Every structure is written in structure tokens, then in C-alpha cells.
């Protein structure tokens, strides 16, 4: 079993609407308590600049987009310092349950020689950050605020 964090939340929203909210990085600073901002293009191979809120400070990561399947999933791959120490594949995926209900899957698979030690320290906090973001996204999607750009 690989080291992983996997969180899910049920959201009353169409998958199209949720996809729009989730991929509209420009709006992140307005609602996202975890990923405070993303610069870059959501396109396979592109490099992003992500500012993540941890307990006491903002950390900057520069992962590379791995995969984009419109209205369904996207992921990026990032490393701490250099590849092989602590690498993470961060992913979002949307599953339709009913015409206006979806399951958001938000997780990260970890590898690298330091991953066990680092996860022991920050695993719980990281999972918690994922959940905080999931809940904020659910609130945004269900609040009735239009997502029309």
C-alpha cells in the first residue's frame, strides 16, 4: 500500500459547475483557505506556482501539471527540494453521482526516501488542509452564487 492521503466530499452541484470552480485559479484567493493561489496554466506539462497555507506560513511549490481530463480530473507532481526525497502527486477528481450531485476526490500519493518521516510529521495537518479546502469548495458550490465567469 503506498503512502497516500485521500479525502472525499459529496457536493450538490453539477460536475460542469464544480469543474469550473475548481479550475478557475484566479478566484482561489477569494475562497480557498489552503491553496491560496495558483499561477500558471492548467495544461499537461505546464509548471504551476502554488502558494499553500500551512499552519504558520505560506509555502511555495512549483509542481508540473500531469494530466487534465476536462470535467473529470487533473493532477500535478511536485517535489520538496529535489526529486526523490519527498515527491507528491496531488490530484482532484470529480465523479457524478446524480445529475446535480458529485463526489469530489482530493488526494495525494507520496513517494521518495523521506516520505515516511515527513508524513509522520505533517500528514495529519496536510489531510486537514485538504478537508478544509473541500468544505470551502462545497460551500461555494452550494451557496447558489453564480459561477459564470
Amino acid at each position, binding site marked *: *500500500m503506498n503512502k497516500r492521503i485521500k479525502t472525499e466530499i459529496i457536493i450538490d452541484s453539477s460536475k460542469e459547475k464544480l469543474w469550473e470552480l475548481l479550475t478557475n485559479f484566479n478566484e482561489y484567493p477569494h475562497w480557498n483557505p489552503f491553496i491560496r493561489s495558483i499561477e500558471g496554466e492548467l495544461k499537461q506539462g505546464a509548471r504551476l506556482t502554488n502558494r499553500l497555507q500551512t499552519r504558520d506560513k505560506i509555502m511555495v511549490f512549483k509542481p508540473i501539471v500531469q494530466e487534465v481530463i476536462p470535467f473529470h480530473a487533473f493532477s500535478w507532481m511536485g517535489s520538496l527540494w529535489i526529486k526523490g526525497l519527498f515527491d507528491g502527486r496531488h490530484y482532484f477528481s470529480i465523479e457524478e453521482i446524480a445529475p446535480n450531485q458529485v463526489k469530489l476526490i482530493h488526494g495525494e500519493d507520496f513517494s521518495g526516501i523521506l516520505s*515516511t518521516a515527513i508524513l*509522520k510529521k505533517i500528514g495529519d495537518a496536510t489531510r486537514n488542509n485538504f478537508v478544509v479546502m473541500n468544505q470551502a469548495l462545497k460551500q461555494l458550490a452550494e451557496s447558489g452564487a453564480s459561477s459564470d465567469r
Partner: protein
Amino acid sequence: MFEQFFAFASNLVQFTNQEKQLIQSAFTFRQVPRKFRLTEEGKIAREVYFINKGLLRLYYTKEGEDITAFIFKENLFASSYDSFLRKVPSIQTLEALEDSDLLVITYDDMQRLYELVPAMNTLTRKIAEQRFINAQLVLSSYILDSPEERYRKFEAEHGDLLLRIPHYMIASFLGITPVSLSRIRKRLM
């Protein structure tokens, strides 16, 4: 999200830190709203749920009416376990009665966890023993007690549930009609 699970488990079995990491990787944290169905009647139940927060109800459907088989609350493992173990279509529905926070594990991940973390066998054995004791008490109460005694026992053990769920669900769980339940409650107040 796992503090609660590990606090609960620590009464039954000791896990090493490495084992805890394996467990944390095997479970998914899922938040579901009230009325969400985790298992549908007629479909195979592929997951088991540890309840961090919330209530899940397992029920049968017979001639359009539902009959409560069990109500799971915090710190219990819930599932349509027969369907899960045998991989056959469930004859019950498992539904959230409240917004619920769950730790979810699939059948395959569970089997892998039994291999990697042998103490999980001990945990499941002890949980199964507890569950057996409870089932036995419920069944014995069905056979030996009057409806009023059954209600008293339920209230003594699960008084909190009387405030959290509709009484008609409790009535069918106790095997009495909603009208009788309401009469019994009036008599006892």
C-alpha cells in the same frame, strides 16, 4: 481525522507508528450529507465505514415501508457487512441520517491491511465480539422482553438517539408500531 479511530482502537489493540501510517493510507476520509446513500439495496457493498461523526441507518424495504435493522453512531464500524463479505447484492440500504464524517475502506484494501498489519485481525475479532454481544442482547430482548422493557433498555443505552432520529425508525427497530411507541413513552414519562 484518525485521532478518534486510534483512541477507540487503543482500547482493544496496540498499533506501532508504522502500522498507524499504513492504516492512514488505507482509509479515505469522506464527508457525506444527510440522506446520502452509501449502500443501495441490490448493489454490492464494497466499503466499510468508521463513523467519526454522524449517524448511519441500515434498513430493509418491505412492501414500500422501511424497517430499521440497525443505527450506527460515532466510533462504530458500519456497513451492509453481509454483502461486503460475500460480495453479493445487498438486501439492505445504508443511509446517513445526519451529515457524517467517515473513514472509508474498500474490501481489497481491507484484505491488504490484514496482511500488512496483523493486529488488524485482533481488532476486527474484538469488534466482532462486541458486535456479537450487542446483537445477542437485542435478539434476546426480542424473545424475552415486552415492548415496554425493550424500549426502556433502548432508552437506557441509546437515550441520545431519541433526540437525533425520527421515532418511527426507532419503533421499527424495536419491532413495535409507532403508535405503541408513543403510548409507551407517554406511560413512562
